[in-house]
């Protein structure tokens, strides 16, 4: 890979160990994946924040970077942490709170913004065709497919290295020829809700494993549905982009999705028995948009939720602030608006949660292993009605 004189100097350590090690990461990954150069990025989004999923592993490396004065050169943001604002005070062992705080402080020292959301695009939408280095698979696929920005599905360390250097190796989804659809997916099933879009993603991700699907006949009602589709595709497949709209010109392999398959997939995403009542109804994976918050307020319509069920609405602080009137209406029903975290990356079992009902296919897919919880997968309206039932 070609490096500029400036980049060579960083690689030689002229600007200190932190930038040197970050440049080594980018240069080596670039070599491995056939990049010819590094390209500037508009932003970096860094995963690997929650103490629940990380444990102590990253603390020492992050500490070494901060001690060597590492600072992000571009707009850099953080994924959700394990502990939410307000609701979680003193709910977990002291050590968990302390370690999570340490991780956040280390990132902040590097000027990485603790937005603690998996939907950084609601805070600042990337420009069309902007090059990014985003980790968090649901955000990367949304950026490529819906926002038409360009990013590989970064890992936690490579996104951090890109933030500190302000560049990323030019390979994969940064090159137009690698962004073309590889499989035409004909949907012979009805997509009635955001949950159906999620189930479609789980199914196609599993069947395709990798590649770039083009969804024929997909009429995206709301970007929120596409958010569910992408998050699910990236959960079961090594898939970082999908297409819809204008048919591809080239002849590509075809796949058909039937109503029966889709229904079976949705059914399998519920692991709890049909009689089981949820301890938690969880909406907000990925974090809720302003539109979703508004929809939730409208469906709840001032009614009071059943006090034996918890209803969590997870979003970013940014959306919470922008949606203030709806937030207030939702809170009056007894629901909790939770920022900075979500059900998947916190310790739900410590909070006594054994059954999670959700409209998110991604959560339904991961919760049995990551939360050791049973799942009930249903569309938003059904989830909220369950929480309202006396």
């Amino acid at each position, binding site marked *: 890979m070609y490096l500029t004189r400036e980049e060579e100097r960083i690689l030689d350590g002229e600007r200190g160990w932190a930038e040197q090690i970050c440049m080594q990461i980018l240069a080596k*990954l670039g070599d491995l994946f056939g990049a010819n150069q590094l390209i500037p990025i508009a932003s970096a989004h860094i995963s690997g924040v929650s103490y629940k999923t990380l444990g102590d592993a990253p603390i020492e490396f992050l500490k070494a970077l901060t001690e060597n004065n590492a600072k992000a050169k571009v707009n850099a943001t953080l994924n959700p942490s394990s502990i939410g604002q307000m609701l979680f005070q003193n709910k977990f062992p002291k050590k968990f709170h302390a370690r999570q705080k340490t991780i956040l402080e280390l990132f902040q020292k590097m000027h990485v913004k603790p937005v603690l959301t998996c939907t950084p695009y609601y805070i600042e939408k990337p420009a069309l065709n902007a090059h990014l280095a985003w980790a968090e698979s649901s955000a990367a696929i949304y950026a490529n497919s819906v926002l038409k920005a360009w990013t590989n599905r970064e890992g936690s360390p490579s996104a951090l290295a890109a933030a500190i250097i302000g560049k990323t190796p030019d390979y994969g989804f940064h090159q137009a020829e690698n962004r073309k659809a590889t499989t035409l997916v004909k949907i012979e099933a009805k997509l009635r809700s955001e949950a159906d879009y999620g189930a479609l993603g789980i199914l196609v991700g599993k069947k395709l494993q990798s590649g770039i699907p083009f969804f024929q006949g997909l009429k995206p009602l709301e970007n929120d549905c596409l958010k569910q589709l992408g998050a699910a595709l990236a959960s079961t497949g090594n898939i970082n982009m999908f297409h819809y709209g204008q048919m591809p010109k080239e002849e590509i392999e075809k796949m058909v999705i039937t109503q029966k398959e889709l229904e079976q997939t949705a059914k399998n995403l519920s692991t709890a028995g049909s009689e089981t009542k949820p301890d938690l109804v969880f909406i907000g994976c990925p974090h809720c948009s302003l539109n979703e918050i508004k929809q939730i307020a409208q469906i709840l319509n001032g009614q009071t939720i059943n006090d034996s069920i918890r209803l969590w609405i997870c979003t970013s602080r940014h959306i919470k602030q922008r949606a203030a009137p709806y937030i207030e209406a939702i809170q009056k029903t007894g629901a909790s608006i939770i920022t900075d975290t979500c059900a998947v990356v916190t310790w739900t079992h410590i909070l006594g949660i054994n059954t999670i009902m959700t409209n998110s296919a991604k959560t339904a897919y991961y919760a049995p292993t990551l939360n050791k919880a049973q799942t009930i997968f249903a569309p938003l309206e059904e989830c909220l009605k369950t929480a309202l039932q006396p």
Partner: protein
Amino acid sequence: MSIITLKGRVIVAGNCKGKALVTDKPITFLGGVNPKTGTLVERGHDLYGQKITDKILCFPHGHGSTVGSYVIYALKKHGLAPRAMITENADTVVTVGAIIAEIPMLDQVDIKQIKTGDIVEIRTVDDSALVKVLREKSQCI
């Protein structure tokens, strides 16, 4: 004593010698290796319960969360890291881990030729590596 010489590509340079620990299964570092003991703790893995510390760890590639790179770094800081890592295909997790922990790493090596307990010597020159595998005769029969 038999000697086999294998070729490979250098991911992180460094010359060293040590005892091989070999598996044909990918290794998941986050959750699969305890950074405080250097032990492989993934259930059902054929190296389950084995210490990777100071070994020439030979495996096809890494697997799982990218945070696994930080586990490799933590192993090194605790003095529990493998002496070198030899893989078939370099993946992002192990590559980044080897870079930040400064552990010699190779890929494109035919690891099927190496057996646990072999003495392995790695010599790297620029991008290419030579791996000398020394085995007691009795093991070959």
